[in-house]
């Protein structure tokens, strides 16, 4: 069917900030969709609150709105732009929910706006548990016994009927927030209570647990002409019971016979047809390992994380084609964009196996429950392609960047058999490594199968790996053994360990004997048709298909899996760097391993290598491509960390040299450099032992900021207040050694400032200066950043520009740099310099219209800032106020303390922009998902050091009519200042405790600062968690509280009595 001509303007709704369960995959999908619609000649309006995305680049859509995805704001945009239609199925659950809200509000009917693609009726049928079950019953398709419950009594009644275990699935939530598997009454109460809270319709599905079944997914597409295809099927290595986003997944299915496969394929197509999906859809099924019995688990009537994975796994661009289907095109009239010779109406054939492993944030959240269940906890994922399962899984393991290069624990000696069994029985992030260890200890695959329910097929493959370890160990430098080990995916690093040699020796031996990988094309058709796709993966085989072109090339290293501290911002910069390289006339080659991202869309670069980001894997590509050099400064710490080893092997690092990178990152060299250019920094030193740390800290004076060098997102960074604490920190939090020194700095309180700059070696361009709302001590990624600075004097701005310029030149930066300053007692200090792209690059680029990554890349390639048409120095301020507000995923991570500190905890960000700071903040906070009520109560518990400031805040809240509730200590202080306050009891008291207030929803805001001494620490923790669990904004920094207060003040009017004197006169 030809495309629709009756519509011109289409509104695309994005997915908002990155949170667990909704990550970069929707930037990929949204970007593809917008480009695809523009290709067809439509005018595209985009709304997304997340500035760190490619889709919000002004080139991607005709009009881009970075505004909150809430009913009032999107309605405003709709009224202004008057689109003919809305495409909601590419913005994840956020986009879908927004479309439903818009529809229910009546605005779509009022303005005659159509919903494109899958119709809302179908979305309701797929998402509403009751409607879905009815539909399945009509179709005669089995669903596990279940019941919709609205309260705990109904839940208990269901369990009495069905028995444990049961699964709790809250309705309409992202990544199953609030759900879980219950084995007993205590679990049931916990999950049902939280599930009901998170469900916007206060509904949970209780379901008979079919844990242990195989979990199989089908990515299906259908067009309005009723053509329906399966793009890809996938098998979860982890059996049913673990959220698919938290499961190790392979594509295609491995243990299903054709009969099983066709049976489930037929079911999936039947469902997509019954739902009348127009676009992409994901069907999750559970298959009994011992019969043909199956159940339908879930249907996602939209483009999803799985469809991004399926797109990258097969090369078939689901989102792009889904967008075209939405405007009326059918699958059999569109070409397959990969082969460009065959049609889109076909099912990709793979001639490789794909393995995906999720990336979890437990390295940052040590206290978090590491158990995996029906609620997703991963922040990102890696994918690898190989010709065997062993190869694919080991490539994925080393892509994770968790310090694992093989399926082994970091310190296996310390693990008891009991612990090992427990960690295999109850899935957690490290189960794969525990299984490796169990196999090494001689536990049978049958036993492990019994513990884990993982199919014997996969366990036998892991057993193959473990068994071959001995062969490798027994035969150092045996060519045949080495070749076979490489074919099984063993890392050079692992082999080097077995041979007791340096990694480079293995590499050199490989090269000497021509044991090097070849690169195979991902072509959707298993080689059946000729393709031109520049999308490759490495494997140890005979024929290489990646041919070096005549054109000089530049390799850009991507940033790997999304994790806290290294988010989509780095992919944004990577993509822009690739585009700049192309513009500059070079062939742009990218290496990355993250299937969610825009950078791994093969249409972005001239060549995409989907490979692990390790020295070995990068070097083989360098050997083949012989590039001009490698760009490392856009791929976050992932790429930076590879720079030294690459240069050691003779690779030219483009931009800031390795030596200069080191100067910025190595504490002592950095100090010397600062001294040379005369820029002050907080007093500090490095320690390599516990004793040394204590001496240094005592010398500097408490509080001190401690952190390991070379880390991302402030991992293991802490503020310590006394000798006891530093001792504890050194003994438990870090593993200090001469190779891994620990930095100890004077902790300065004051305003934190962040500056990004571009230097071409001579000229320094500063697109903008950002001021943080939260004072120094809160990680910059977790702070609200404001552009332009609101409180800085011209003198300080001048100093910042001067320091930044001197630092850029002094450190010989070529490309991007990011600097954190603190202004304490009227003095500007440098806290940190990152010789690379930063989290704020997309934010600043969007505000200032200065394409920072592009300019930096061209500077790296030799074009000066002036030649590029920019004036060095600080760019003039843009009109308006812009705030970057962090977004957290605490609701998904149980037992994580939400207190803001030097260690980063946010997963994403939103931008708020308007003409005043208050308005911008309002938008930012609302876009971040906070509910701002302009009346109600504030619950305060603050530490002694914060009491004075807290009184001021209480006073102002009281002024605009808020009731203040406080615990005893805080209340006393507030009372003393003459402000009315209600006292609540501490946790554990008999009366109404602070937890009751939160649970009952009697407080609209909670202000809780980290308490030391007086109150047990865990009380504060429980208060904060309780707020999260109840969806009440909990502010752990008084600065954030003050900002929030300003917003509310600007929204409300104060009411005051007339003053006596005035009455008298």
């Amino acid at each position: 069917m030809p495309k629709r001509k009756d519509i011109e303007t289409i509104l695309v709704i994005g997915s908002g900030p990155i949170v667990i369960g909704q990550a970069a995959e929707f930037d990929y999908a949204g970007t593809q969709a917008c480009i695809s619609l523009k290709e067809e000649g439509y005018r595209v309006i985009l709304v997304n609150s997340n500035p760190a995305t490619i889709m919000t680049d002004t080139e991607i859509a005709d009009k881009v709105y970075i505004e909150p995805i809430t009913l009032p704001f999107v309605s405003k945009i709709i009224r202004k732009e008057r689109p003919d239609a809305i495409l909601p199925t590419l913005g994840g659950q956020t986009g879908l929910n927004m479309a439903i809200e818009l529809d229910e509000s009546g605005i779509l009917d009022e303005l005659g706006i159509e919903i494109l693609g899958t119709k809302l009726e179908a979305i309701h049928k797929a998402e509403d548990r009751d409607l879905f079950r009815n539909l399945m019953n009509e179709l005669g398709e089995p669903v596990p016994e279940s019941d919709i419950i609205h309260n705990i009594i109904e839940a208990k009644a269901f369990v009495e009927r069905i028995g444990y275990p049961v699964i709790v699935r809250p309705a309409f939530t992202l990544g199953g927030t609030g759900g879980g598997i219950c084995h007993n009454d205590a679990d049931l109460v916990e999950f049902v209570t939280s599930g009901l809270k998170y469900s916007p319709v206060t509904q949970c599905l209780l379901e008979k647990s079919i844990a242990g079944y195989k979990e199989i997914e089908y990515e299906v597409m259908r067009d309005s002409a009723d053509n329906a295809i399966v793009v890809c099927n996938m098998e979860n290595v982890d059996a049913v019971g673990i959220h698919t986003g938290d499961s190790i997944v392979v594509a295609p299915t491995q243990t299903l016979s054709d009969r099983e496969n066709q049976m489930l394929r037929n079911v999936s197509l039947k469902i997509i047809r019954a739902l009348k999906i127009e676009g992409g859809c994901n069907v999750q099924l559970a298959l009994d390992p011992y019969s043909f019995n199956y159940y339908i688990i879930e249907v996602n009537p939209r483009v999803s994380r799985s469809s991004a994975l399926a797109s990258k796994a097969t090369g078939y661009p689901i989102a792009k084609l889904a967008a075209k289907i939405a405007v009326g095109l059918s699958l059999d009239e569109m070409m397959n964009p990969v082969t460009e010779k065959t049609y889109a109406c076909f099912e990709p054939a793979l001639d490789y196996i794909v393995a995906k492993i999720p990336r979890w944030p437990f390295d940052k959240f040590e206290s978090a429950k590491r158990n995996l269940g029906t609620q997703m906890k991963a922040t990102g994922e890696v994918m690898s392609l190989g010709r065997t399962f062993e190869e694919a899984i080991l490539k994925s393991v080393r892509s994770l960047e968790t310090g694992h290069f093989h399926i082994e624990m970091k310190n296996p000696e310390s693990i008891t058999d009991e612990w090992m069994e427990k960690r295999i029985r109850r899935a957690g992030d490290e189960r794969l490594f525990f299984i490796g260890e169990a196999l090494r200890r001689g536990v049978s695959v049958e036993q492990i199968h019994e513990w884990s329910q993982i199919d014997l097929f996969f366990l036998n493959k892991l057993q193959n790996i473990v068994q071959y370890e001995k062969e490798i160990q027994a035969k150092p430098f045996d060519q045949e053994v080495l070749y076979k080990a490489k074919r099984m995916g063993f890392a050079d690093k692992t082999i080097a360990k077995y041979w007791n040699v340096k990694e480079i020796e293995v590499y050199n031996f490989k090269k000497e004997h021509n044991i090097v990988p070849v690169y195979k094309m991902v072509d959707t058709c298993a080689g059946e048709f000729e393709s031109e796709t520049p999308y490759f993966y490495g494997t140890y085989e005979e024929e290489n298909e990646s041919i070096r072109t005549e054109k000089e090339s530049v390799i850009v290293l991507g940033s790997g899996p999304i994790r806290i501290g290294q988010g989509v911002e780095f992919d944004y910069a990577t993509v822009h760097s690739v585009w700049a390289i192309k513009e500059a006339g070079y062939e742009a080659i990218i290496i990355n391993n993250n299937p969610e991202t825009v950078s791994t869309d093969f249409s972005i670069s001239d060549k995409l290598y989907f490979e692990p980001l390790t020295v070995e894997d990068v070097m083989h590509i360098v050997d083949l491509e012989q590039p001009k050099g490698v760009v490392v400064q856009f791929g976050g710490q992932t790429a930076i960390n590879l720079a030294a080893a690459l240069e050691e092997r003779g690779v030219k690092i483009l931009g800031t040299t390795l030596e200069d990178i080191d100067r910025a990152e190595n504490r002592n060299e950095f100090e010397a450099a600062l001294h040379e250019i005369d820029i002050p920094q907080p007093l500090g030193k490095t320690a390599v032992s516990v004793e040394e740390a204590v001496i240094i800290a005592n010398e500097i004076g408490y509080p001190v900021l401690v952190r390991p060098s070379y880390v991302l997102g402030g991992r293991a960074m802490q503020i310590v207040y006394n000798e006891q604490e530093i001792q504890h920190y050194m003994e438990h939090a870090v593993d200090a050694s001469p190779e891994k020194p620990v930095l100890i700095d004077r902790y300065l309180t004051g305003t934190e400032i962040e500056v990004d700059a571009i230097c071409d070696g001579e000229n320094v361009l500063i697109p903008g200066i950002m001021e943080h709302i939260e004072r120094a001590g809160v990680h910059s990624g977790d702070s609200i950043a404001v552009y332009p600075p609101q409180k800085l004097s011209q003198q300080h701005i001048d100093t910042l520009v001067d320091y930044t310029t001197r630092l850029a030149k002094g450190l010989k930066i070529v490309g991007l740099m990011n600097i954190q300053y603190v202004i304490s007692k009227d003095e500007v200090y440098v806290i940190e310099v990152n010789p690379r792209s930063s989290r704020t690059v997309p934010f600043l680029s969007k505000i200032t219209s200065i394409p920072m990554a592009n300019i930096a890349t061209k500077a790296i390639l030799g074009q000066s800032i002036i030649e590029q048409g920019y004036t060095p120095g600080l760019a003039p301020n843009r009109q308006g106020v812009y705030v970057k507000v962090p977004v957290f995923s605490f609701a998904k991570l149980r037992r994580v303390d939400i207190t803001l500190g030097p260690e980063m905890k946010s997963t994403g960000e939103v931008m708020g922009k308007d003409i005043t700071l208050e308005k911008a903040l309002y938008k930012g906070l609302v876009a971040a998902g906070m509910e701002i009520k302009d009346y109600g109560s504030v619950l305060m518990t603050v530490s002694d050091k914060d009491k004075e400031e807290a009184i001021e805040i209480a006073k102002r809240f009281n002024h605009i009519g808020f009731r203040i509730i406080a615990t005893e200590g805080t209340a006393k202080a507030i009372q003393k200042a003459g402000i009315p306050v209600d006292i609540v009891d501490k946790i554990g008291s008999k009366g109404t405790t602070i937890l009751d207030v939160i649970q009952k929803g009697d407080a609209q805001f909670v202000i809780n600062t980290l308490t030391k001494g007086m109150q047990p620490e865990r009380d504060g923790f429980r208060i904060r968690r309780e707020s999260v669990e109840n969806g009440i904004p909990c502010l752990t920094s008084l600065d954030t509280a003050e900002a929030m207060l300003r917003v509310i003040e600007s929204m409300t009017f104060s009411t005051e009595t007339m003053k006596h004197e005035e009455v008298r006169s």
Partner: protein
Amino acid sequence: MAGGERMKMRYLLLEDGTVFKGNAFGSEEGSFGEVIFTTAMTGYQESISDPSNCGQILTFTYPMVGNYGVNPEDFESIDLALSGVVVRELAEQPSNFRSQNTLHEFLEAKNIPGIEGIDTRKLTRIIRNHGSLKGKLTKAGEEVNIAEEIEKLKATVIPTNVVQQVSITRPYPSPGRGKRVVLVDFGMKHGILRELNKRDCDITVVPYNTSAKEILGMFPDGVMLSNGPGDPTDIPEAIEMVKEIIGQVPIFGVCLGHQLISLASGATSFKLKFGHRGGNHPVKDLKTGRTELTSQNHGYSIDADSIENTDLEITHIALNDGTVEGVKHKKFPVYSVQFHPEGSSGPEDSKHLFDQFIELMNANSKKENSHA
């Protein structure tokens, strides 16, 4: 295979001089055949037992084969007719509740050689670029004079009696209570029989060289022409038979059966460069406009231009290369498809074509009754 040590080596030699060295599995004997590839990712058990692959060395482009083992239920024929199997990795420890054997054990028992561990994508690309090639699997564990072997290979002629090799020699019944169907076995997949059985047909399976007279003498409600191996022009006796029954009885043809109906109606066939083999081939139904994913396995095709001057019309085309995928007779209840509506292995989108056959037989008997 992980415990590769116990495995013997063997070569796969191609007539263009390419040599692949890999591990032997299945039979230790050598073999000869046309080297082809299939892109289906599941269904190896069905593929290796598909009589249409008679005399061919079948390459699986999906690299891991044998994962779910071999079960007693999923065969498409009792005896294997193919000459060899080529895979990147053979599963040593399959896993599936129905699995009884490993693929290696099964092929060994059936005396079919296989080669494992070679770059099957390279092989696929060679076939794609050069067209199907003659190939030879050497005896396990034996070094050979490669140049000599390749010369011999070039001189070897692909046999033309493949249908005869795989068809039955005597008729047998597969009783039911419904429509009486004579199913002509040119190398029939069990899937066809299964679909007719499911529709309660009363079936008599007859050899490929059964005469029209014999067939009509069984008073069938319909005749089903099965799939089969090789070049349709190699069995002129069958083409004659089809010519004679067109107009006498409703006919449904699949794959080779489709080619025979076309040739009997005056169309011509040609050899495709490397065939259509896999489970992801889109076919457009020209009447409904809908595209279905089909299972295909054929090296020959009907020339579209040659249909113009016949009583046939094209009903289905391959979406990708536009080749003929289905025809129907303009006057008589006769239709056929080039692909495999029975699936096994592969998609089952087109199973309704069997329903159509039943409907056609019903309609025809009604017509006959009204005439009577």
